C-alpha cells in the first residue's frame, strides 16, 4: 500500500529541478484565478488545463506507446455525449456520468484495437484517423444522439455541484485542475508500473520486448484501451463547461490533431511534455486568435501559429522538453 502511494504521488526517480518545477507549477495554477482577473485569461487557463489533460491521456499511446494515434477526438466525444445525454435524458448527476463515459470509450477502443494493431506506423495512424471520422459521421447521422443539432444541457443558476454548473470561471478552474491532477497522478503511477515499462519496452524494440516474455499485441491493446478511457474524461468536462455539444465541437479532426500536436510540441513520452505543449500552444492560439482574428489582418493568427509549430517540429523533434532536458544536462555536467 505504502509503495503504491509512493508510486502515485512521488517523483523520486526524477531530477530535483523537475520536482521543484512541478511544485511551482501547482502553486501557479492554484493562485492563478486570484491574480488574473481577466475572464479571457481565466478561460485560457481552463482550456490549457483541459488540453494538458487530453495530452496526458494521449501521451500514453503517442508518447510511451510510440504509436501515432490521430483519433483521440472520438473518445472525447464519447465522454462528452455520455455526460450530456445522461444529464438530459435521466438527470443523472455529473459525477455519475464520468465513469460510464470512460467505460464506453475504453470498450470501443478495446473492440477496434484488435483489428487495428495488425497495422503499424503510418497505416495505424491513418486507421485511427478514419475510425474517428466515421464515429463523427455516425453521431451526425443518428437522431437519438441529437444528430447534427447536438445536445443542449439546460442552464442551472448559481453554483451547482451536482451538475457542475457555475457562473464563475473560478469553480471551473479548480474543477478541471482536480481532474487534471487525478489523471496526472495516474500517469505518474502508470509510467512506473509493470504495464508502463512493458509499453515503453514495446515502443523501443518489439522483438526485444517479445523475447523478454512481453505479449506485444496484448500490451498495445491494453494501452490503447486505457488511452480511450482517459480521453473521455476531458470530454465529460467539455459537456458541462460549454453546455452545448455537437459532433463538430467535440469530435472534429482538428481536435484529434491538436491533442497530438500539444504532446509532440511539448515532448512525447515525458510526463511533462503534454503540460509544456499545452502551455505554449493554447495561450498562443487563443491570444493570437482574439487579437489578430478580428482585425484587418485576418488569418495572420493561423499563419504565425503554423510557423511556430513548424519551427519546433523541424528543429527539435523531441519537443520543448527535449531542449530543456539537454540544457540542464549540459549545465550539471
Amino acid at each position, binding site marked *: 500500500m505504502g509503495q503504491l502511494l509512493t508510486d502515485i504521488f512521488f517523483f523520486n526517480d526524477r531530477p530535483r529541478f523537475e520536482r521543484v518545477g512541478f511544485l511551482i507549477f501547482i502553486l501557479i495554477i492554484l493562485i492563478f484565478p486570484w491574480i488574473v482577473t*481577466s*475572464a*479571457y*485569461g481565466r*478561460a485560457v487557463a481552463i*482550456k490549457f488545463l483541459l488540453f494538458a489533460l487530453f495530452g496526458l491521456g494521449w501521451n500514453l499511446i503517442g508518447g510511451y506507446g510510440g504509436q501515432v494515434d490521430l483519433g483521440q477526438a472520438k473518445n472525447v466525444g464519447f465522454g462528452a455525449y455520455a455526460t450530456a445525454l445522461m444529464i438530459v435524458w435521466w438527470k443523472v448527476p455529473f459525477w455519475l456520468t464520468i465513469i460510464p463515459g470512460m467505460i464506453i470509450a475504453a470498450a470501443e477502443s478495446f473492440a477496434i484495437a484488435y483489428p487495428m494493431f495488425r497495422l503499424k506506423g503510418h497505416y495505424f495512424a491513418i486507421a485511427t484517423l478514419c475510425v474517428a471520422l466515421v464515429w463523427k459521421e455516425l453521431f*451526425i*447521422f443518428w437522431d437519438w444522439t441529437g*444528430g*447534427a*443539432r*447536438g445536445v*443542449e444541457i439546460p*442552464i442551472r443558476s448559481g453554483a451547482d455541484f451536482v451538475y457542475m454548473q457555475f*457562473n464563475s*470561471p473560478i469553480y471551473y478552474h479548480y474543477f478541471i485542475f482536480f481532474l487534471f491532477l487525478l489523471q496526472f497522478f495516474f500517469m505518474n503511477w502508470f509510467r512506473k508500473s509493470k504495464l508502463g515499462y512493458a509499453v515503453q519496452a514495446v515502443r523501443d524494440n518489439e522483438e526485444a520486448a517479445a523475447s523478454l516474455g512481453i505479449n506485444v499485441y496484448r500490451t498495445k491493446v491494453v494501452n490503447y484501451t486505457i488511452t480511450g478511457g482517459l480521453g473521455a474524461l476531458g470530454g465529460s468536462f*467539455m459537456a458541462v463547461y*460549454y*453546455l*452545448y455539444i*455537437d459532433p*463538430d*465541437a467535440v469530435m472534429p479532426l482538428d481536435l484529434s490533431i491538436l491533442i497530438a500536436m500539444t504532446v509532440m510540441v511539448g515532448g512525447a513520452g515525458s510526463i511533462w511534455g503534454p503540460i509544456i505543449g499545452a502551455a505554449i500552444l493554447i*495561450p*498562443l492560439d*487563443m*491570444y493570437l*486568435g*482574439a*487579437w489578430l*482574428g*478580428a482585425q484587418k489582418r*485576418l*488569418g495572420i*493568427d*493561423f499563419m504565425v501559429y503554423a510557423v*511556430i509549430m513548424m*519551427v519546433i517540429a523541424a*528543429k527539435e523533434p523531441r519537443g520543448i522538453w527535449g*531542449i530543456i532536458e539537454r540544457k540542464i544536462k549540459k549545465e550539471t555536467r
Partner: protein
Amino acid sequence: MTWKKMGMFSLIVLFSLFLVLPNLSLAQKEVKIGVILPLSGPLAPIGKSLKEGAELAADIVNKKYPGIGIPIAEWEGIPGLGGAKIKLIFSDSRGDPAWGAEQAKRLIEDEKVVGLMGAYQSAVTKTASVEAERAGIPFVNPDSTSPDLSKRGFKWFWRVTPHETWFTRDLFDFLDGLVAGKAQGVKAVPKSELEPLAVAAENTEWGAASLAEIEKFAKERGWKIAESFKYPHKATDLTSEARKLTASKAPTFLFASYVSDAILFIKALKEMKATPRLIWGQNAGFIQPDFWKTLGADVNGIVSRDVFSSVLGKVKPEADRINKIYKERSGFDFDGSSARDFIGVQVWAHALNAAKSTDPKALQKALNELHIPGKELIMPWKGVKFGSPFPGDTNQNELGSGIIIQYQGYPDGKPEIVFPFEMATSRLIYPFAGWK
C-alpha cells in the same frame, strides 16, 4: 543558434505579455457592443459582409446622415444616452461553438461590452448566448435561424430575424402556390411536375434544423421527398452528393448550404447536365455575393428564400438610400445577411435609446417593450417587436417575414422578388432553363 532560439522565445513571451495588458479605455463617451462573427475559415466571406452591414448601421447612428428618412440617421450618437457613440467590438468565431463561447466571455468580462450581437451560425449562437444568459447581459441575434434558439426560454436572448419554421412555411406556400397557379406569368403547375423533392443540407446545427423543418412541412402538406441527406459544408468536393440528387430523379432540388458548398453543388450539377425544374436555396450561401460572382450566368433561374433584395428600393426609398451608401463602402448591394446585421445594430440603438442607461435590467426591459415600425427598416417587414409567433418561442420578433428571390439576367441582373406573389417584382422563370 542558441541565442537565436532564446531570442525567439523571449519575443513570444514579450508578445503575449503585451497582449495580456489591459486595454486603456478612452475618455470619450461610448457604448460598446460585442459582435461575434465567422471572420475566418470557409464562412469568412459571409462574415465580412455581416461585419460591413453592422459597421454601416453603427456609423449611421453615430453620425448625421441627412435625407435618408429614418430616425437613426438624424442622430449623432444615442440621444437617450447624451449622444454616446456606438462602438462595435468584433470578434472572430472561427465557426467553432467552443471558440465562440470563449470570445463571448472575453467580450463580456474583459471588454465590458453592454451587450452582444451575432453569431450567424446557429451552433455558435447557442454557446455564445449561454454565456450572455449566465452573465445576465442582452444578446441580440439578428442572423441565426435555427428554430431551437428562441425555444430555450432565455431571458437575455432576443432574435430579430424570422426563423426556419417561418421560412420553410414560405417555401411550401410557394410550392403550393405554384400548383394553384398563383405565381405571376406561370400557369398552374401540376404537382407531379414538382414532386418528389430532393434535399441536401449541410451537417451542422443550422442545416440539420432546416432539413427537419422541410421534412415536417412536407409531411403536413403532402409533398413526397425522394432523397434527403446531410453533407459537410467544409467539403472540397461534392460530386458524389450532387450525383445522389440527380440519381433521385427528383425535379425539385432544395438546399441548405453555406457559400463554398453551394458553389460546388451548382458547378457539379452543371457538369452532370442535371435538369431539375426548380432549384431552391435556404438563404445563407445562395444569397452571398461570392455565390453569384463566381457562378455568373449559371445562377439564373435559381430561387432562394431571403429577407432582403436590393430591388426592394423600388418600393422602399429608405432602403434604396441606405443600400447606395453600403454599395459605395463595400462594393456590393445589401443581401439578406448583411441587411439583417444592419437591423441588429438598429435594434441595439433603439433599445439603448429607450433604456436611457446601459444597465442590463433597463436594457432587458427596453428590449422586451421595443417596437420599431416597419417603415424605419430596410426590410419588407412590419417591424420589430418581440413575442411568441410560433408555439414555444420567446423573445422572437413577431413582425418579420421572408421573401423568395430569383436570380434573373445575371451577371448584370438583380435578385427579383417572386414570393410573396403579391409583392413580386418580376415574373417567375419556370421551369429552370438548365445550364449552358
